[in-house]
């Protein structure tokens, strides 16, 4: 098999698997019978839980990486929280937090 053919098949497989995974909940529960109560309740409680898990996912290198990188991430994350509680301006919180992080990883 040529390299291009192999690469194309890898892309096709990855695309198909991702589509099936993303569509699975809609295929299972999207029909006329509707969503079971328990899944409906999950649909309400999962988003905040997933968002919190995604924050942990973004910071996953903290316990395993270097001390200075961990500190940069924690400090920048704390800045985002503080700034957002104070001003509640989404773009400001994100821009300022990212700037703090970019500066910290260069000076620490």
């Amino acid at each position, binding site marked *: 098999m040529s390299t291009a053919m*192999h*690469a*194309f*098949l*890898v*892309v*096709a*497989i*990855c695309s198909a*698997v*991702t589509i099936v*995974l*993303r*569509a*699975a*909940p*809609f295929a299972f*529960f*999207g029909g006329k019978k509707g*969503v079971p109560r*328990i*899944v409906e*309740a*999950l*649909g309400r409680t*999962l*988003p*905040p*839980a*997933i*968002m*919190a*898990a*995604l*924050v*942990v*996912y*973004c*910071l*996953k290198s903290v*316990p*395993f990486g270097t001390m200075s990188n961990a500190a940069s*991430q924690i400090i*920048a*994350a704390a800045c*985002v*929280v503080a700034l*957002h*509680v104070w001003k*509640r301006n*989404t*773009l400001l919180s*994100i*821009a300022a*937090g*990212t700037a703090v*992080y*970019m500066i910290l*990883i*260069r000076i620490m």
Partner: protein
Amino acid sequence: MAEQSVRRRAFLLSLPVMCGYLFLGTAFGAMLAQAGFGVQWALLCSTLVYAGSLQFVMVPLMAGGSLAAAFLTALMVNARHLFYGLSFIERFKGMGRLRPYMIFSLTDETYSVFCGMPEGESDGVMVRVAAYDQLYWIIGSVAGGLLASRLPFDLTGIDFSMTALFIVICVERAMNAADRMPMVLGAVCAGACLLVLGPDNFLAPALALTAAALTIPHVARKGAGQ
């Protein structure tokens, strides 16, 4: 809302994702180019696969390795997507011909922007946010393929905007008392899985654990005959 203000609102909502996607997309395109795959491959991957972390681990598999490994990797890395759709089953109903694209394009970032939206957000805004996000990702990866390692400035760290976006959404949701318990649960499950399983492939088990923990109260209530 007029067409123009719908577009404007969608653009503003997608701005944080733009920062993250343009940077990460560029990094992906450059990585692909270094592995010997040109711009057309960046375009193909970001259009058809459109899944950030999977696309990065896919690159060495495209250069070599078995197709079975590609299948298992895709399954492991993207298993978390099983949980995202659950919150939008009702919302995407009635979106007609837009529905398949809404499902296809439900990445972590687009999902999180949707989670931050007020109830009753219009279909037009939602589909534009989804499409703009993918456009940023495609533009970034093609630019990365063209520029490869010849970027004129050092943007290392700008991908923190994604982390910041997720944190902001968490802070917003924490204002709502009903969301606090699930958030704590999600963070604790993810933290525990991270420490036990390590940083690779801990998210899907963490989400499964979270979902199980969130359903226990309902099962218990049913068991008690209420």
